[in-house]
C-alpha cells in the first residue's frame, strides 16, 4: 500500500506519534488579572466586537473581526498608547479550515506592555491595509503577500518583496514543498536557457552526501587525487608550505616556519 501523503500540508511530520500523548497548552489567563490589559480591553470592547481575549506569556491576545482591523489598530494607537508595530504576518491554516490567521504584534512603550491582535480571513479574502496607522506595515504587508498570497487592499505598492517578480506560488504556504515546486526547481534554467534545456542541464543535485567516484575535481586533496578505491598517497612529494619569494619582497622579510613565534598573550 502506498503511504498516504497529505498534499494540503507537506510540512515535515514526526515519524513517531504516541496515541496517548496529551498535548499540553501554554497557560492562558483572564485579561482581568492584569490591570493595564483589563483597561485596554474594556476600551476596545465598548466600541468593537471582540471574539476572544486572553493573556498568554505576559501578552494580551485579542481576536477581532477582520473588517475592523484598521479601526481597532487606530483606536489602540491613539487611545491605548500602542504606538509601535513590532511585527505582523500570517499563519496558514488552509489545510485545517481554509483560513489564514493574521496577527499584529503591538508595543506600548509608555506602559511597557505588548499585545497581539489577531483575526482570521478566508482563502481568497483580502484584508485592508494598516499603512495609514503604522507606516512600518508597508514592507511587512508586502512580505505577507509574497509569502502567503494574502492580498492587502489599498496598499501603496503591493508587489513581491523577497521573491522575484515573476515567481510562481507563495513559498510559506503549507502546500509548497521545502525544495520548491516544479516552477521553482527549473526557474533559473527556464529563464536563462529556455524550457527545452531542462533535459540538457538536468535537475539540481541536492544530496549533500552524494559522492561522484569519477569526479576528481572536487576532492579534499587537491593535486593529490587518486582513483576511486585506490589507496590514498600518504606523503605527497611536494607540499607547498610557503608561497613567498626566496629573498622576500621589498619591506617584507620572508616568513619561515623556523622563525615563527607563538605569543602566549595578545599584545
Amino acid at each position, binding site marked *: 500500500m502506498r503511504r498516504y501523503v497529505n498534499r494540503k500540508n507537506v*510540512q*515535515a*511530520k*514526526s*515519524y*513517531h506519534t504516541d496515541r496517548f*500523548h496529551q*498535548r*499540553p*497548552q*501554554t*497557560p*492562558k489567563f483572564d485579561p482581568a488579572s492584569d490591570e493595564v490589559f483589563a483597561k485596554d480591553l474594556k476600551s476596545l470592547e465598548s466600541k468593537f466586537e471582540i471574539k476572544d481575549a486572553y493573556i*498568554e*506569556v505576559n*501578552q494580551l491576545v485579542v481576536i477581532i473581526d477582520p473588517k475592523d482591523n484598521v479601526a481597532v489598530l487606530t483606536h489602540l494607537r491613539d487611545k491605548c498608547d500602542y*504606538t*509601535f*508595530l*513590532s*511585527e505582523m*504576518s500570517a*499563519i*496558514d491554516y488552509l489545510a485545517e479550515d481554509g483560513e489564514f490567521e493574521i*496577527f499584529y*504584534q503591538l*508595543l506600548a*512603550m509608555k506602559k*511597557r506592555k*505588548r499585545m*497581539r491582535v489577531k483575526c482570521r480571513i478566508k482563502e481568497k479574502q483580502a484584508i485592508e491595509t494598516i499603512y495609514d496607522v*503604522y*507606516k*512600518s506595515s*508597508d*514592507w511587512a504587508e508586502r512580505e505577507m503577500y509574497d*509569502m502567503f498570497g494574502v492580498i492587502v487592499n489599498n496598499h501603496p505598492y503591493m508587489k*513581491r*518583496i*523577497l*521573491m*522575484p517578480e515573476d515567481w510562481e506560488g507563495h*513559498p*510559506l504556504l503549507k502546500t*509548497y514543498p*521545502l525544495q520548491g515546486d516544479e516552477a521553482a526547481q527549473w526557474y533559473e534554467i527556464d529563464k536563462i536557457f529556455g524550457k527545452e534545456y531542462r533535459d540538457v542541464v538536468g535537475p539540481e543535485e541536492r544530496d549533500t552526501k552524494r559522492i561522484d567516484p569519477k569526479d576528481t575535481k572536487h576532492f579534499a586533496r587537491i593535486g593529490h587525487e587518486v582513483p576511486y578505491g585506490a589507496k590514498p598517497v600518504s606523503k605527497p612529494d611536494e607540499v607547498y608550505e610557503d608561497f613567498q619569494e626566496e629573498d622576500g619582497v621589498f619591506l617584507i622579510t620572508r616568513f619561515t616556519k623556523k622563525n615563527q613565534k607563538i605569543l602566549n*598573550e*595578545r599584545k
Partner: protein
Amino acid sequence: MQTPNRLQPFYENLVFEKDDNRMIINFGPQHPSAHGQLRLILELDGEQVVKAVPDIGYLHRGMEKMAENMIYNEFLPTTDRMDYIAATSNNYGFALAVERLLGIEKEVPRRAKVIRTMLLELNRIISHLFWLATHALDVGAMSVFLYCFREREFAMDLMEDYCGARLTHAAVRIGGVPLDLPDGWLNQLLHFINKMPDNIADYEGLLDQNRIWKMRLEQVGNLTPEDALDWGCSGPTLRGSGIAYDIRKEEPYEIYDELEFKVPVADTNDSYGRYKLYMAEMRESLKIIRQCIHLYKDTEPQLMADVPQYISAPKERIMTENYSLMQHFVLVTQGMRPPVGEVYVPTESPKGELGFFIRSEGDPYPYRLKVRAPSFWHTSLLQHMLPGHYLADVVTIIGNLNIVFGEIDR
C-alpha cells in the same frame, strides 16, 4: 532612450531622461557600500534624491520555511546565518523564545545566564566595532577601519576560544549553554575590557572633531521620534531619536535587571548623534561584562536546565543512567514537543529589537516561525529617509542604519 554608438556606448546602469532632468540610478546589488545585496533605485534631480525604492531579496534563503521543517534544536545553528556579525544574539533570541514557550525560562542555571549575558555583550561590542569600521570606511576614514578591526579581532579570538567559531557561533543552547568558560578565558576577557576604553577614546579622537566626519554626519539622515516610531525603528536608531527604549532595561531578560548600566540616548536625531550613541553603548557593554565577571565567580557549575521532558541530561548522566539515555535518544531523534500555543519574544540585539514569533501545535516542528529582524524595518525606512538628501549622503545613511542583509532577507 539611449541610442548607443561607438562614441556613446550603452550605459546599462544609467537611464538619463533629458526632458525633465531626472536621472534614475541603479545602486547595487553589488555595490560595496550597500553592506550586502541591497539594490536601490534612486531617482535624482541633479544630485538630490527625489525618490528611493529599495529592492531586497537577493539573499533570501527561506529560513522561516526551513524552521518549519526542522526540530527546534536543529534550527538553532541556522539562526547564526541571519545577523552574522553578532551571531550569538540570534541564537539567544531563538533560545529564549523556545524557553518561554516551554515555560522553562526560570530553570536556566545561573552560570549559564551569566555566560550568556557576557557573550551577548561581547557580541554587541563586536557588532558595534564592525559598524563603526565599515561606516567610517564608507565615509572615507580608512584608518578607523583598521583600528576597529584590530580590536574586533581580539574579541573574535575570545569568541573562538569559547565556542570554536568566529562568525557562526551557535554558542547558546535551548535551556543553557553547552560549555563552561575555558581556563584563563576570564583573564583574557578582563585584559580586553581593560584596554577597550582607551581604544574607544582613540576612535573618538580620530572622529569626534574631525571636520570631514562632522560635515558628512551632522544633520544627515534626520529622523524625528514620531517617524522612528511610525516606521518601526528600534535599537540605536530609535534611541538616536531621543526615545529611551531599551528592551534590556524595560523588559529585562537574563540577568539584566541585576546589572547596572545606563541607556544612552541621543536627541539630535541625526547620524552624528547615533554615532555618539554607539560609542556610549560600547562603554556600557564593557561595564556589563565587568559586572558579569564578578558574578561568574560565585555560581554553581551547572550549565543546562534540568528539565528532562524537553532537554537532555548532562553527558555523565546519559552515560550512566538508562532512563536519561532513553530520553536523550528521543529528544535527539524526534525532538522536543512543546506545549500548544504561541509566543513572541523580543530581545535587544545590537541592531535593535530582534523578535521571534513561534506558533506551536505541539509537534516537534514549529507550525510557524516568524523572525522580526530589526534591519528589515530599518531598510524599509530608506524610502522615507533618502529623498531630499544628496547622492553622496546615501552611502552615509545606509552605513549609519547598521543593516545586515543576512537578517533582512533571512
